[in-house]
């Protein structure tokens, strides 16, 4: 990466160039100038380079071309070039794409390469990338570079961009259990994720409140555990649609089925799965976490996760493991007897470990990797060395940066979410606090830092449904997106504010209900339908 001296000169050039200052997230390397080229929608096309590994018929790119064409030109009335008025700027009539490595039909993965270079000069209008995923990122950047004169002509400045993400895992968590989110809300969110170069949709599908995932092996869970089994569920078709829609935008779908806590909604449909709580010597009629002492529990989990493993193709599954409340386990005499037999004493963390380890064995036997919440690490559960630990607690047991240090010191890969709970709202421009967090700001060796694979913005659903999701997410989620994509030196709040303000207007133009950062206006305001 460029040294900081060079960096600042580039930054300055960009600010002077003005037009490029609409880019979000900021690319790794950019050189741009005031000289520009005209683009005429009816003449313009995206085309494959003859030696590109991807050619017409590549679904990911064919569809992206269509999408970006619409984004660039559809909401405008096209201005035909006036033959009478001489155009001073030379014209660009195509963007040529060259993808080096073949592969249009696979899914993006943690290892996917997203690098691209974009060259717009007198000789070229050219997008080069190793993979189709890099081409998608480059197309987004291209779409942000095109601007429009007051007379209605489209232009793009002479620009050279070399870009790649700082972290490979740049996620957004949506919670469809506390409130059901209609499929359109999810798909719309995937669109905006792509505009922000986010690449992981962490789908917190089920929780205590409801079980909207329509399981085909255990239909009773959904029938009894969803808010409404006719309307508030995700069918197999819905899930397929989400996965494909995400794939076409270079986004992975990381499914979370959180256990052994956060499982109240599983109970009604799977008798015997949850631990019966006791009041004195009698069952109280309420239930606690998944019952870890029964063989039937693990038989159920084997079958259930076999289904989940085949429905969700990503290598990783999120297994949850957070906030296990021991009160109910403590109250249950059968559990107490089991603890004694196993020699766990009164240490319920050992019982939790016992459960999680058995579950991890089940899931790894299906050839899956897993992500877990930090408690699994905090409670010393023995996990496979390639487990990914997600840090979500801000202060306990230690500050989240200390936790990052401990996890990476133990050799595990880490994901940061603690400072990025977007459901927590306050008055004013809180995006700047979100923006100023650096995931590597902890004491640790370069090897430790290399274990941080990224982070996730989390939008928990207690107070969020489709009525307020979009304005609460955007553009605040954009602050996390730039932090995870751009160079660590891109930290100027003024520069970010200017660009994010323009980017949010661009989001409005694209039909996204992104809320304002501060007073002001956009040429095209959001219109209620």
């Amino acid at each position, binding site marked *: 990466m460029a040294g900081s001296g060079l960096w600042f000169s580039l930054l300055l050039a960009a600010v002077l160039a003005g037009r490029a200052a609409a880019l979000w997230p900021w690319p790794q390397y950019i050189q741009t100038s005031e000289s520009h080229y005209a683009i005429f929608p009816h003449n313009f096309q995206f085309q494959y380079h003859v030696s590109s590994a991807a050619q017409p018929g590549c679904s990911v790119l064919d569809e992206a071309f269509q999408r970006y064409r619409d984004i660039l030109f559809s909401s405008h009335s096209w201005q035909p070039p006036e033959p009478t008025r001489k155009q001073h700027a030379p014209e660009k009539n195509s963007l040529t794409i060259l993808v080096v490595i073949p592969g249009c039909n696979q899914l993006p993965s943690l290892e996917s390469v997203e690098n691209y270079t974009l060259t717009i000069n007198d000789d070229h209008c050219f997008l080069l990338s190793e993979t189709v995923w890099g081409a998608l990122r480059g197309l987004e950047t291209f779409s942000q570079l095109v601007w429009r004169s007051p007379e209605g002509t489209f232009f793009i400045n002479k620009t050279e961009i070399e870009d790649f993400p700082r972290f490979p895992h740049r996620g957004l968590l949506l919670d469809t259990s506390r409130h059901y989110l209609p499929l359109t809300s999810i798909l719309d969110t995937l669109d905006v994720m792509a505009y922000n170069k986010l690449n992981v949709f962490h789908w917190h599908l089920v929780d205590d409140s409801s079980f909207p995932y329509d399981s085909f092996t255990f239909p009773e869970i959904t029938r009894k555990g969803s808010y409404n089994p006719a309307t508030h569920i995700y069918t197999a078709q819905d899930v397929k649609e989400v996965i494909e829609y995400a794939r076409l935008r270079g986004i992975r779908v990381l499914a979370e089925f959180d256990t052994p806590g956060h499982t109240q909604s599983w109970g009604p449909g799977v008798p015997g799965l949850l631990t019966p709580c006791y009041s004195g010597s009698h069952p109280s009629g309420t239930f606690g976490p998944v019952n870890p002492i029964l063989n039937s529990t693990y038989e159920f989990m084997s079958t259930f996760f076999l289904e989940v493993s085949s429905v969700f193709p990503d290598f990783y599954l999120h297994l949850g493991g957070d906030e296990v409340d021991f009160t109910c386990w403590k109250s249950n005499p059968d559990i107490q007897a089991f603890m004694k037999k196993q020699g766990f004493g009164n240490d319920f963390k050992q019982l939790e470990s016992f459960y999680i380890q058995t579950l991890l064995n089940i899931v790894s036997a299906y050839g899956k990797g897993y992500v877990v919440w930090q408690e699994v690490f905090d409670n010393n559960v023995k996990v496979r060395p390639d487990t990914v630990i997600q840090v979500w607690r801000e202060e306990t047991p230690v500050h989240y940066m200390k936790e990052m240090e401990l996890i990476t010191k133990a050799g595990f890969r880490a994901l940061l979410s603690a400072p990025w709970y977007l459901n927590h709202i306050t*008055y004013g421009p809180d995006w700047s606090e979100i923006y100023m967090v650096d995931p590597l700001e902890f004491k640790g060796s370069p090897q430790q830092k290399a274990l941080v694979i990224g982070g996730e913005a989390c939008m928990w659903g207690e107070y969020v449904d489709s009525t307020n999701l979009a304005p609460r997410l955007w553009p605040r989620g954009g602050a996390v997106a730039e932090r995870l994509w751009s160079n660590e030196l891109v930290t100027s709040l003024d520069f970010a504010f200017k660009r994010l303000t323009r980017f949010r207007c661009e989001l*409005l133009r694209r039909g996204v209900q992104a809320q304002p950062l501060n007073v002001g206006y956009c040429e095209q305001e959001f219109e209620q339908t």
Partner: protein
Amino acid sequence: MEQRGLGLPALLALLAALAPRSFAAPGPTLWPMPLSVKLSPRLLVVSRENFSFSYDPSSTAGPSCSLLQEAFRRYHDYIFDLKTSQLGPPKRNSAVELKQLLISVVLESECDLYPNITSDESYTLAVAGPVAFLKANRVWGVLRGLETFSQLIYQDSYGTFTINEANIIDSPRFPHRGILIDTARHFLPIKSILKTLDAMAFNKFNVLHWHIVDDQSFPYQSVAFPELSNKGSYSLSHVYTPNDVRAVIEYARLRGIRVLPEFDSPGHTQSWGKGQKNLLTPCYNGPEQSGTFGPINPILNSTYCFLAQFFKEVGTVFPDHFVHLGGDEVDFTCWESNPEVLDFMKRKGFGRDFQRLESFYIQKLLYIVSTINKGAIVWQEVFDDHVKLKPGTVVQVWKQEMYPEKQAQVTAAGFPMILSAPWYLDWISYGQDWRKFYKVDPLDFDGSQEQKELVIGGEACLWGEFVDATNLTPRLWPRASAIGERLWSPKNIKDLEDAYNRLTVHRCRMTRRGIAAEPLFTGYCEY
């Protein structure tokens, strides 16, 4: 990974909210709660095909009253155009059917007038088969009663539209129940304003306080001074034309809502300066003008000529008796820097007391407004700064700190007042802040009976620094609904859990009617 730091109460709330799957049988859900409700267990069925609104022969208003005709059509849609259709034949074939709601307006209907602060909104509703009666002195009461009637009808588990026999007597606790929107910090498209008026009617609000201009922009298109918006608006597409304003006023009138315009001065006027030369005070940096401007220049005759002409226009464009004149947050620094202002102060014998200069300005403005026969509402600073006010001037209390003391002072001085201090909805925080808004009682201050009677109501304020059309609706609703009930319902309606249960259903009703009201907590809407 969610409930951290929220402690036991939040966990209990969570457990309570796990209940929705075991909802009690459906029933009517009223918001805001009427003065007196007697529900009988006897059920009537209602059907889209057979039901109609009509007029009792005794009614002073009839089919020529378009305000009511339009309301009938609206409420027919709200009641029957549910996304869930009837799932099967009515369960109780023997049940009596409610076929008609007969409306009777007793006194002169006021059908073609504008609502005002003294408008009578009371009504009585008697529901029995096959005909129900809605009686009110004026059309305004009919509008409130129609909303209540629509809230009484629900679909039973077979999808049949059902209503209990009922007797309701209702009238508002306070006559001024407002929502403030701010179209200067961010422009709000007309559609957003109209949607807000819809939602206001669902919550029986009756005043749209339109903070139309401020430092940041001047979207009001003035006929007499077109340069104000030509130069002072964000862009030429970010303006409210005379037609737009008329549309808002009429849409509001049809819902029994007053439009109270605010043209805030002498502070908060940066945007006025762009289109009106010499209106603002030039600030000085030592002996030189700094090129920046302060509040309106109070020492020039031209200022008052302009204001007289401008407010004359405002007075005719906005039919309401009241104009809000602002008067808040006047920064004296610029006045202090200006030698001509200092000269003027000396001549007038104001010494260094800039509050007296402010008073001088406001008094002249109040006089101008009284010459056009309008009443004035001002923010509390005008009272705090000892401006001599005409009796009857309404003071709006907005500062959080010790606001009950302020209420006591304002009313002790004999001025009518409006409360807003605890109801700034632009201040957001995590969780259920509606409870905080709901618990406030506007009469919880030390004062005599006469003082309490001077509290004419309150307003929920949604200032626009961080709000535009993208997030206005979910930020307003259902949080403002809490204030809606506080200002309408009797003082003793304050049980939080009952309110939670009703408001949860009411917010689902609002979303069904096209208002993107955000959730109170975990759960779902059945539609």
